[in-house]
């Protein structure tokens, strides 16, 4: 296994990018932290998640039907509640951390997959300033830690496949943590493993040795981590056969859900169907209008239309580029996107728009790659990259007040508020 080499001029570029990265991480942290703990009341699904986490920590069982998902996010939430109290700090600090750290992982993954360009910094900037990702990083949804753990798995696998580092055991632990959070990546996980296996085999490793390594680190180890995450559930007197039974019950229960059974089904309807998430602007949520004043506060889910609408064309462009270059590695990101997104399109149950969080990293890697291809095709790389990054920052900062309940004059946001669906008032 030969690690990929980085040229001296690329090292200079990376050095310059590191400064931009620090700025991007700082902005990511600010967008997720600023005012996140001001709201002393529950919002979004916090009235479900917080009592469920406390019940999980106390009795080893959840409330509000959360049992159909693995327990790790509830345990993390219970941990932060124990650390910081049953307060907004205890509820939201975990997602602030995971949301911000996901931006760093995006950069590192981009660096390994696309060394020597600006794709890592563009992709991480897109995620850092994405109002949708920032919104959910300020509350308790398990999609944020699930995405983080998968990115961690992907990072360690890319380190293994691209640089020959012995990170398979770490990837196995990250994979176990992913499986112990939520089951979005059932197709993406073997896809990444298959890619790494293919690359390792191309580098001359024996198949039998690879099978043994992958079997131990990517099957047995994650399964053990997943089982361990249920330690409190086992403490209620259950055994391994009952664990298997419980998982079959959970799948059956999940498949029986209908939209009308959800208390917050207005959010399902307002959030659009999965096929719409990357094809049209979707803005909805809660508002607080001040009487007799043209001002208000908003907590809106905004699907980042200027950049989300670039995702599908970018994926197509990359697929064509990969086909022309006959480069398997170029297809990894589009396939990762497809592996998660197909689940949303094919699953037979109502989908909330927040599920799109888990495909955003792949979507933005694709957009960043397409921007880079466009910049090279133009022959004006620096101006194109700079303009794009400025547009990302300007848009992210412009809509931030609408996701964070800042007091804003309505006139500044009329075009967006005109297409927004308000589903509740606070």
């Amino acid at each position, binding site marked *: 296994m030969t690690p990929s080499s980085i040229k001296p001029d690329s090292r200079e570029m990376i050095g310059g990018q590191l400064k931009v990265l620090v700025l991007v991480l700082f902005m990511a942290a600010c967008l997720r932290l600023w005012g996140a703990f001001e709201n002393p009341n529950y919002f979004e699904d916090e009235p479900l998640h917080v009592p469920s986490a406390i019940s999980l920590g106390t009795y080893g069982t959840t409330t509000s039907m959360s049992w159909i998902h693995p327990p790790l996010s509830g345990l993390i939430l219970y941990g932060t509640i124990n650390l910081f109290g049953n307060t907004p700090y205890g509820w939201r600090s975990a997602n602030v951390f995971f949301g911000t750290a996901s931006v760093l992982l995006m950069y590192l993954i981009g660096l390994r997959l696309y060394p020597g360009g600006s794709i890592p910094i563009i992709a991480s900037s897109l995620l850092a300033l994405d109002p949708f990702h920032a919104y959910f990083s300020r509350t308790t949804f398990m999609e944020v830690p699930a995405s983080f753990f998968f990115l961690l798995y992907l990072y360690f696998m890319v380190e293994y496949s691209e640089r020959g580092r012995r990170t398979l*055991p770490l990837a196995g632990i990250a994979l176990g943590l992913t499986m112990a959070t939520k089951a979005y990546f059932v197709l993406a996980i073997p896809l990444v493993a298959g890619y790494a296996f293919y690359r390792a085999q191309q580098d001359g490793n024996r198949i039998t040795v690879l099978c043994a390594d992958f079997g*131990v680190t990517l099957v047995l*180890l994650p399964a053990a981590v997943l089982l361990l995450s249920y330690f409190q559930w086992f403490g209620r007197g259950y055994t391994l056969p009952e*664990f298997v039974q419980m998982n079959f019950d959970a799948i059956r229960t999940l498949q029986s859900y209908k939209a009308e059974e959800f208390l917050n089904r207005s959010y399902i309807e307002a959030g659009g169907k999965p096929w719409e998430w990357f094809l049209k602007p979707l803005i909805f949520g809660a508002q607080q209008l001040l009487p007799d004043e043209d001002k208000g506060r908003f907590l809106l889910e905004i699907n980042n239309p200027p950049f989300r609408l670039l995702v599908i064309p970018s994926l197509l462009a990359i697929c064509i580029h990969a086909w022309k270059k006959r480069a398997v590695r170029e297809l990894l990101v589009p396939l990762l996107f497809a592996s998660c997104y197909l689940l949303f399109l094919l699953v037979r149950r109502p989908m909330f728009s927040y599920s799109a969080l888990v495909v955003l990293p792949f979507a933005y890697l694709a957009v960043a790659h397409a921007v880079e291809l466009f910049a090279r095709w133009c022959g004006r790389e620096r101006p194109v990259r700079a303009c794009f990054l400025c547009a990302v920052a300007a848009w992210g900062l412009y809509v931030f007040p609408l996701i964070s309940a800042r007091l804003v004059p309505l006139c500044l946001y009329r075009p967006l508020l005109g297409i927004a669906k308000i589903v509740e008032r606070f």
Partner: protein
Amino acid sequence: MPCRATTTACILAFVCGVLLFSCLYGPLRRTFVSPARVVPVDSAATLYKLYASNGVRGRIAILFTRHLIAAEYPYASPEIKYIEDAMHHGIVRELYHVVPDRLWAGVAWNLSQVTIYWPTPYGFVGAFEDGRVNVLPLSRLMPMKEKALVLLDAETWTREELHRIAAFIETGNISTDLLAILGGSPDDLAKFDLTVSAAAR
């Protein structure tokens, strides 16, 4: 960096440890009452206190009664929430709700209208965060290897049905360390006391 063999050995040891844990930890956490006893209770709340005071945990419970959970039967006594609390607090991990055969048609129809219950060869089963709830008629009650907490709501059953239940316990098809009788006569109490004692021997 440790060599591949060492890393693999460590991972396999960890995996074996977790497998052992998942097989043994649960059964070790179950607590039983000794010696086995039969206790009269006058209300559902008393039953919950009985379980809590005896420190039972992680158990199977078999309830021979008609109505179970207050949420499904809004006109039932709110005290029937006892079994929800017992399951939520980890006293009971799986429930068998046994109803008289003569009432089974109505129960089956009710459950068939509820999406969280689905039919099985012996009755219906529902999966909840606090555990599984199996609902079945007396004629399909199966032998159980594990000692169970048993509640017998005597007023629900005829004499003949009570004899059948007693026979189940006496022959060891159901073993119990704590049998609570709700309602019923002193004769019922004495009869089941003998039954449980005989089964324990």
